[in-house]
């Protein structure tokens, strides 16, 4: 093993993506094993590393660095994080590859860092290969109808983002790593003046953007739909539906969840009266917590759900609305 290193950028995005850093580390270690490089992690703040370690699942890295110990950079200041990360990358002569997640924030950050340094960006790779001293990235292009194999033509460092859907969970927990703070020397300020931040009403929220999605299926009657929308407004959730619900006119086509609709990754997915066909389950593969409410305890959705409630939607949804009105679900 030489001094060459691979850096994995770890960010749980304020706790929203708790599993993703661990899956990214597993991928980084796989590439490091193939190349003989050291696999190190880099976080924007020591608190991010602390949150990851507090999750109870440690990670084994050859080094873990933080961009700075001052207050954490919010999402809006991504330009600042990018500037600092670029400065760190530029100051690391042994760095070969910087790996980031292909999330919205990760992709934005990767593009800014690569552009700042004038380095190649292998974005949204579904696979990485090390072949003949070349890094080859496989990317899905043209709406998934083809895969493009790309390779950098210049010397490292290279910037890579990985499609989060292909990342696998690490095999086993590992000891915690110690965090070392890197002195970046870059102190950029965002150029844009943020005037105001607001949240759109739940009714306008798309199923791809929402953290909570209430999805209706064939088990929901049309007259119960108003209460589902009321519950969605109280929880600031988006309303989606299965293919059957779309065919039945309960939800619009652009709100269909499943293989032939939207592939979503909310934090909480509540399936109301949905049996859970294979194609529907494909669309919620990345959902973190799934709740199934169905009268049929043997419905396939129950096997995917973390919490299964055998109840009639027409009975439970009004109860949820009543409970949610004064509820302590203040910040969702």
């Amino acid at each position: 093993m030489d001094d060459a290193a691979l850096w994995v950028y770890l960010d749980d995005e304020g706790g929203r993506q708790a599993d993703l850093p661990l899956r990214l580390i597993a991928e980084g270690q796989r590439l490091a094993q193939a190349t003989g490089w050291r696999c190190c992690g880099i976080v924007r703040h020591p608190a991010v590393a602390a949150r990851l370690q507090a999750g109870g699942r440690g990670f084994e890295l050859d080094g873990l660095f933080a961009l700075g110990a001052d207050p954490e950079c919010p999402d809006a200041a991504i330009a600042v994080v990018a500037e600092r990360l670029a400065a760190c990358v530029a100051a690391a002569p042994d760095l070969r590859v910087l790996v980031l997640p292909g999330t919205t924030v990760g992709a934005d950050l990767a593009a800014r860092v690569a552009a700042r340094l004038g380095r190649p960006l292998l974005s949204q790779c579904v696979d990485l290969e090390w072949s003949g001293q070349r890094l080859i990235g496989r990317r899905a292009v043209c709406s998934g109808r083809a895969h493009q194999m790309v390779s950098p033509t210049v010397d490292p460092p290279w910037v890579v983002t990985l499609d989060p859907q292909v990342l696998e969970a690490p095999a086993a927990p590992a000891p915690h790593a110690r965090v070392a703070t890197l002195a970046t020397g870059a102190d950029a300020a965002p150029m844009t003046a943020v005037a105001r931040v607001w949240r759109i009403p739940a009714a306008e929220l798309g199923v791809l953007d929402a953290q909570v999605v209430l999805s209706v299926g064939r088990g929901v009657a049309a007259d119960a739909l108003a209460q589902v929308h009321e519950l969605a407004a109280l929880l600031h959730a988006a309303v989606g539906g299965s293919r059957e619900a779309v065919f039945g006119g309960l939800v619009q086509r652009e709100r269909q969840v499943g293989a032939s609709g939207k592939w979503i990754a909310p934090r909480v997915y509540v399936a109301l009266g949905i049996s859970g066909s294979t194609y529907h389950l494909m669309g919620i593969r990345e959902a973190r917590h799934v709740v199934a409410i169905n009268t049929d305890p043997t419905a396939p959705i129950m096997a995917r759900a973390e919490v299964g409630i055998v109840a009639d939607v027409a009975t439970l949804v009004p109860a949820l609305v009543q409970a949610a009105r004064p509820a302590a679900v203040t910040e969702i």
Partner: protein
Amino acid sequence: MHIVVCLKPAVPAAAITYDPRSGAPLRPVERVTSLRDAVALQMAFDLQCVPGTSVTALAIADERADPLLRRALCAGATRAIRVWDADGGSALDTWSAARVAGAALGVLDADLVLCGSQSDDLGDGYFPAALAAGAGCELFVRALSVVVGDHGVEAVQKIEGGWRVGSTLRLPAVVAVEPEATRLRHHAVLGRVYRAGLARAVEVWGAADVGLAVWPAPLLEEIELALPRARTRAAPAAAAKLSAKDRLKRKKAPVAEEAAPVAWDGPPDVVARQLLERIAQWLQ
């Protein structure tokens, strides 16, 4: 205000064919405007209502981009410019195309640059960042709206979870727009704008016209365009040790108990309270 809209001729995904012998995907000759680029162009036309605003459509591509640029002219663009170097421009990746576009922006003296956040074909999302870095402009991504207000150019950015951030841009700026930023409107064929567009021609610039002594070399090369395939996943160590008989037994076994959900039962109001508490806990 001078607005430049960057258009990338994209490969239409539906027109991809496959070689009958090797199965390799084949790109069609035709090129189309990506949805996000079309939205960026429409957004520029919306801003054109402000007096003194001109819109230039810019493409860094070969002659296959000409139909796109002509359509932009007919839809209301003031100018359409295609930058290409016949000798050195055979292989441009996103970064090198952004470098050329950045050099062109210097010549055009643009105030606002609009482009799609990513193209429909390659979709790497690198162009806006590389362009902003090359041109030394501010970068504003995931834009849902851009309006010229009393305090300058104000833009709204899309953030996950339904959040929106409104900001005032410092010009010149590169703005990458989202597809839902505006609704596309079709221009009236044989209308005044359309006829004026027909009378204009696409300008073709070379490397020297944008002040480049050398055409930038690509940082990435495409090795192959291959058929999509699922990623080869390594079998976990524990599973590898199982005999074929054990694996068959495991496959035939009913769903493991650990996969079974936590089943809740009880009066609806109690279950509802429990569920809301759990959701609040998950969202923390």
